[in-house]
């Protein structure tokens, strides 16, 4: 179930999208393009890492963007919730940004700098935050004559590995879940490490009809100390998901972290 704030976030996103596209036709509004969409950095305690995020203004008019950091959480449904206030244990005090407001000319590109400096006594772990890039607030007319203030916002997730931090992913359960409306095998993955991890790898299997299938694990991040359901999406050809006749036996090698592998040989039945 989505929480009330998530519903509002989604509604806000839809409204912002509709507003952004219609506003683009009127040559105004939020039309920022950001590259890259996320950073995965590493740094030693006491050292500094500086990076650049490119913020492009796709509209023909000059635009002002407001940049700040935020903490974030990842919900069970993989939805990201950004927090303006400082979360407990936040590493944002280690972060410095270039400036709070920038002006990007129409069609222009801004190379925006930020840096992370963990203290010399920082223990191995992972600093996670988001760079939030917002446009100016705009009033959108809604049915009934209401004027709703809406601002477009882009969140760029930043992961910074401190010292020797690394993920430690373990399969703690299996089952059948759902992905894109299809019942799919899922793995319960626990991260016992102190940095986030993602599953990749090549898995294959044979379902009840004898069809040979390939399985692709979702690349959702698994944060330290959390257990996350990772769907295995079946396909007969690249990028063409297919239904599965259960039971299905899935085998192969799961990859994660730097050179870490886990063998999988599991029968999934409904």
């Amino acid at each position, binding site marked *: 179930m989505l929480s009330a704030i998530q519903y509002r976030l989604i509604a*806000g*996103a839809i409204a912002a999208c509709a507003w952004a596209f219609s506003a683009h036709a009127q*040559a105004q509004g939020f039309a920022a393009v950001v590259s890259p969409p996320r950073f995965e950095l590493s740094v030693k305690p006491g050292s500094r890492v500086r990076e650049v995020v490119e913020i492009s203004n796709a509209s023909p008019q*000059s635009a002002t963007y407001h940049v700040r950091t935020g903490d974030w959480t990842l919900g069970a449904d993989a939805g990201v919730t950004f927090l303006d206030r400082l979360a407990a244990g936040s590493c944002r005090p280690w972060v410095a940004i*270039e*400036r709070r407001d920038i002006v990007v000319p129409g069609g222009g590109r801004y190379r925006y700098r930020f840096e992370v400096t963990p203290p010399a006594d920082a223990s191995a772990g992972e600093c996670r935050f988001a760079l939030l890039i917002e446009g100016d607030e705009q009033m959108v007319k809604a049915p009934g004559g209401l004027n709703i203030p809406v601002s477009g916002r882009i969140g760029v997730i930043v992961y910074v590995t401190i010292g020797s931090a690394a993920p430690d992913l373990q399969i703690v359960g299996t089952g059948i879940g759902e992905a894109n409306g299809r019942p799919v095998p899922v793995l319960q993955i626990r991260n016992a490490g102190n940095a986030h991890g993602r599953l990749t790898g090549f898995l294959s299997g044979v379902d009840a009809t004898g069809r040979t299938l390939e399985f692709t694990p979702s690349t959702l991040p698994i944060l330290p100390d959390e257990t996350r359901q990772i769907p295995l999406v079946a396909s007969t050809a690249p990028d063409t998901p297919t239904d599965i006749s259960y039971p299905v036996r899935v085998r192969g090698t799961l990859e994660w972290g730097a050179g870490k592998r886990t063998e999988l040989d599991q029968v999934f039945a409904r």
Partner: protein
Amino acid sequence: MSPCVTASHLCLLLVCALALTRAAAQDNGPDAAPDYQDRLIDDGKLAPDVSQDMYGGNNPEGWPRAFRAQLSAGRVTRNDAATNETGLVLGGMLDTPNYGAFTIDANFRASNSDAYGSGTLFTLSQRALPMNGGWFGNNALGVFNTPSTDLARQQYRFYMPTIPTLGAATEWRRNGDLQLNASVGEPGLYTGIFVPTFESLGGRVATGGLQYRFSNEWAAAAQVAAVNDVALGTGPSASLGTTSARSLYAGTGWGTANARAQLNFVDSAIEDGSNQTGVWFDAGGRTERVYHSFGAFYLSPNLVWGNQPLPSNIEGAYYRADFQTRRWMIDGGLDYVAPVSGPGSATLYAVGNVRYQYLTGLGIGGGANVLEGATNAWSAFGYVDYANPWGIGRAQINYATDSQQDSTQLTIDQSWNPGAGTNLSTSLLLGHLDSGGASANSVGVAVFGTLPLGGRLTLSANARWTKAFGDLPSENVLANLALNWGFAPGWMASLNYYESRNTGQIPLVVTSPIPTLTPVFVQQLNDRTVFLALRYEWRGGTPSVPLSGAAGGGFGSIAGVLYLDANDNSRLDAGEQGAANVTIVLDGRFSARTDAQGRFEFPAVGPGEHVIAVVPDNLPLPWSVAGDGRVNVQVRVRDQTQVDIPVRQLR
């Protein structure tokens, strides 16, 4: 410490997936701690690193429009002969909502070359002119390549040429099912080194074409081209004489989501009375994981398309199969080609490639090509791709042999991750060549990259150097350097340097004997080029979308009068008054209000059928709209549809 990039290294993301209304933002709670204030680098005094777009102008008013101009000067030294060329390229675009997009191109070139001389090129084009009945038109005046039907253009193995022409052309398309095209003019050639211009070959060319789609699967097309008294060459080749020819293309195609087939026929008659014929068939289909392609062809000697050569004097067949999973990529094929007449023998060509992704960061692969017939040759290669802390690397070994030589080459490639806005790839090459009893070892390096130098100054480089030692010493250099400087909004200065020096043998490459006539860039063996260009580009305007229509689809308008039909005859008669201040709704979405005379207008409405509804709230009693107050209206492109709507007295 590199930013995460996707596999394709393309990390652009247009996100509007998250937007917060003020209400949502306040859901952090009134009792939440105050928002955190970020620390600033150097107290926020870092100089902004911002670059303007490559275009000047930022006026969003009016129709989309653009203008560009480039002034250039270059010098080419080819085999010790130097040629100077200066040129001016002008271009403009105006995208109108109701007459399509107009573009204009004008090139002027001055040169001291005997081969190229000086020249000009001028083209005025109109694209996507909307018309009624779902028709769109494309028109060109000046220099263009003759239009062609989709079936003639979309070829799998053979390329159907078009003819550079100075004249007029038109092409009409209707809803994807019908295409018509025609052109007439004087054929010619594109000449020039840096600035293309048009050189006439004299004579006349006329073309025409028709394509009709019978169903979602089936289509058929015919295209004709006729040339009269067209020179076979210019400059030193002008003495080759002239040609006159008639050519006919006919084709039919069938296609579904997973399969396709196309039968093509060409007939050409040259003025000397010879009549030549070509027929070829291409088909393909997908099973669950394998895509099969196959075809056969018979192309008699001296086939031409107008004054353009076609693949000729060959017959044969081919087959290809591609198998792909996330882990495996395997493809292979066979080509058989034989001459229709004259000397020469049949050639068989076989090709196979395989790649296996052992881990996400480790893949291995290889392949082989074998040519048997007039020439016997084969080649093979193997490689390993590996992700490493600095990027992605590849180690590859190639071997090729024919009756003249054996060559082996080891290549170590590395694509580096230097950071946003920068790319860098390097190669190290080691080779060995045996040819005619002599041998040589070679070493080489290559680099390809783009380096922002700050501001809007960018250096791009693609350079390769190899040197051979032993019995067959040689040195090959290929360098292409470009320095681009965007010194003001819309302005760009470019300095390009190109050098190609080859003193050794061209490496043996084993390829299919089936000719394609696809335009191929021919690398000159000894070239040195310096090219300086000053460019300005400007754009402005905003695309407009008509009500209930699509951008570029054209529009008409709806105008009318809502009147008090005093005599109830459904006609607006003299003396009958308009109903003022009444809301008229178009398609349930767009509204207008009648003026004091009852007039209303929707000035830009997409073509097709629409519904106008009268909201009777403001009608003076005892007047009311007849029926449900809805009127169906047909709108035509660039037409005004008049709709007079009566309101009647309640009786």
